[in-house]
């Protein structure tokens, strides 16, 4: 009998497929993982603590840097929390701009998830196609906010800038274009035998496990749980749009892949309707005091980000800074199931499973 040893392998923090500075200490026997321990915190900046010394408007740019792939939803959650505390009614035009910005952000985020996932599996081309289409969204958001990634677009009570002339038409034209591209994505990847072989039946978890591990977003919906805060606890003006909550029952990596791709289609539906309903004119900011002071008390709001439920808890003692701020960061919670999923898999599946969770390290580390 040959004596074999378990090997301790550090995957990350510098590794092409950990999507940032994520470290995974895995014990492997040959190529089979016997134990996996995620190590996080390489990107920890203490957003929550920093926020305690910042005025509410000053916190918004910090949220951009949490989930940097869909900064608009992060912007929204903090503004939404403060608005809830202060009871501010946001003008209609601002709400539409916010929803359109968020849905564009969601599409951009899912495109990155799609492209990088296929890249993790070894095919290089789809990544570049995804980024080509994402670039168009980035340009649109750039026109809106003046930034490509860290938008800092929303404010308590509305949005900072009105849409430039012709912007809504640009979005309207973009919708059919991306629909066509989506078909191309499916043709290119979804039926590929090698791809299916890599993801089908890999990283399976059940409905109950997903709920017990507090998963959310596509990671939860891939197990068949119909839970989308846009539908179940409508915030902003989401109750005005007709769209479906995408679910799959398999709970494997392929299901997560399909949920994300199909959600792009649903977001396109919302964008289309928002373009139709977009008010021709109106205010983009509600009447808010010069210095925003949330009243004494606390509030928790949660919304649906591309990665899952992002929540914001504010405890205020009536000053212009929050007493305590806490974000529920979906990537962090989604990551918790990883050690359980990885046991018994090989290194190739590690990449497939980690990629399908779709984490953003800025959000995991906070």
């Amino acid at each position, binding site marked *: 009998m040959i004596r074999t040893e378990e*090997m301790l*392998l550090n995957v990350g923090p510098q*590794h*092409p*497929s950990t999507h940032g500075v994520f470290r995974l200490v895995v014990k492997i026997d040959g*190529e089979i993982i016997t134990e996996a321990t995620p190590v996080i915190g390489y990107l920890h900046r203490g957003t929550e603590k920093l926020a305690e010394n910042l005025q509410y408007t000053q916190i918004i740019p910090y949220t951009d840097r949490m989930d940097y792939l869909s900064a608009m939803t992060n912007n929204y959650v903090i503004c939404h929390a403060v608005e809830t505390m202060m009871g501010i009614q946001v003008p209609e035009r601002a709400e539409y701009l916010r929803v359109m910005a968020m849905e564009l952000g969601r599409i951009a985020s899912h495109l990155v998830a799609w492209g990088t996932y*296929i*890249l*993790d*599996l*070894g*095919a*290089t*081309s789809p990544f*570049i*196609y995804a980024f*080509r289409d994402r670039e168009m969204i980035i340009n649109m958001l750039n026109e809106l906010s003046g930034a490509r990634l860290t938008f800092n677009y929303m404010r308590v009570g509305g949005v900072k800038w009105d849409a430039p002339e012709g912007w809504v038409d640009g979005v309207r034209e973009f919708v059919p274009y991306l629909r066509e591209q989506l078909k191309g994505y499916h043709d290119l*990847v979804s039926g*590929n035998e*090698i*791809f299916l*072989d*890599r993801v089908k039946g890999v990283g399976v978890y059940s409905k109950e496990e997903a709920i017990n591990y507090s998963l959310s977003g596509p990671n939860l919906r891939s197990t068949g749980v119909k839970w989308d805060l846009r539908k179940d606890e409508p915030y902003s003006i989401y109750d005005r749009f007709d769209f479906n909550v995408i679910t799959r029952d398999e709970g494997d990596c392929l299901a997560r892949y399909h949920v994300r791709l199909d959600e792009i289609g649903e977001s396109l539906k919302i964008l289309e309707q928002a373009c139709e309903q977009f008010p021709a004119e109106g205010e983009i900011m509600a009447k808010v005091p010069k210095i925003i002071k949330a009243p004494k008390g606390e509030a928790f709001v949660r919304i649906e980000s591309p990665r899952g439920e992002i929540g914001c808890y504010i405890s205020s003692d009536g000053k212009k800074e929050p007493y305590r701020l806490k974000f529920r960061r979906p990537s962090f919670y989604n990551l918790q199931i990883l050690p359980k999923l990885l046991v018994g898999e*090989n*290194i*190739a*599946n*590690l*990449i497939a499973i980690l990629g399908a969770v779709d984490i953003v390290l800025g959000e995991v580390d906070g």
Partner: protein
Amino acid sequence: MVEELLHSGSGWMNFGIFFLLAVVLLLVVLGFVTYAILAERKVLGYMQARHGPNQLGGKWGLLQTVADVLKLLIKEDIIPKAADRPLFIIAPIIAFTPAFMVLATIPFTEKFQFADIGVGLLYYIAISGMTVFGMVLGGWASNNKYALLGGMRAGAQMISYEIPLVISVLGVILLTGSLNLNDIVAQQGETAWFILLQPVAFIVFFIASIAELNRTPFDLPESENELVAGYFVEYSGFRWAFFMLTEYVYMFAMSSLITVIFLGGWLPPFDFLGFIPGAVWFALKFCFVVFVYMWIRATLPRFRVDRLMEFAWKVLFPIALANIFLTALIKTLFF
């Protein structure tokens, strides 16, 4: 030309001529590698909606690879402290030497061939099998876990895929009755190209050749997204370049071999096109094969390591065996 030289007596003059010819071939191959890398980047670029290198050397980026090689040459040569020094140094050389040696038997035209060995095909397969030593050694000597995994994968993969590779080509040998590459081409001149007579063998051979070349979708030994760079993760500078050189020289050799075995070598597709020199036909077919390799790279994701083995042993191997059986049966019954 070479034929006459081979049969003339040994002497310094002949040695000198052979040495000169070998240098010429080396330069041709290096030239191919230089521009194959550029072509690969350009082809991938256009397939991926971007331009590829377009700065250095005009809008086609003709000097890009030259600059890259220059960079690799003047780069610091790092040998990890804990590495097995002699093996670490010798591994790229072991990997590269056979890659160049196999070129000797390839008949580029009916006149231009360095060694017309009776068992040319066997020679190719035997020598090219040695490269895997370099890869396993490189992976082991680096004293790096990723490199070790990559080296092991390389070993397992290359050995597994050599078997369908050899067995698929047996069908061609049955039809020709010779292992000599010249005879194989001549036979195709009399009947038809073996891609038509042995389509199954061609498909198996082509798939196995991609695995032998460590290219997508079989690039597991160096899979960037899992093992960072696989067996050469600790290599830098020119030692690393040697591993890359090995890959591209093998691509040259394998494309030449496929051209010779299945695509009729230097023969024109139709007789009335015979006025075009054989070298041109060879180059055209050869370039097409190289292009298909690049095309596949831009298209497919990577296999999983366990599926890779299953695919070799449970799919390719039985198909190749069945192909030999059928070929032999048909040959015995009808010819």
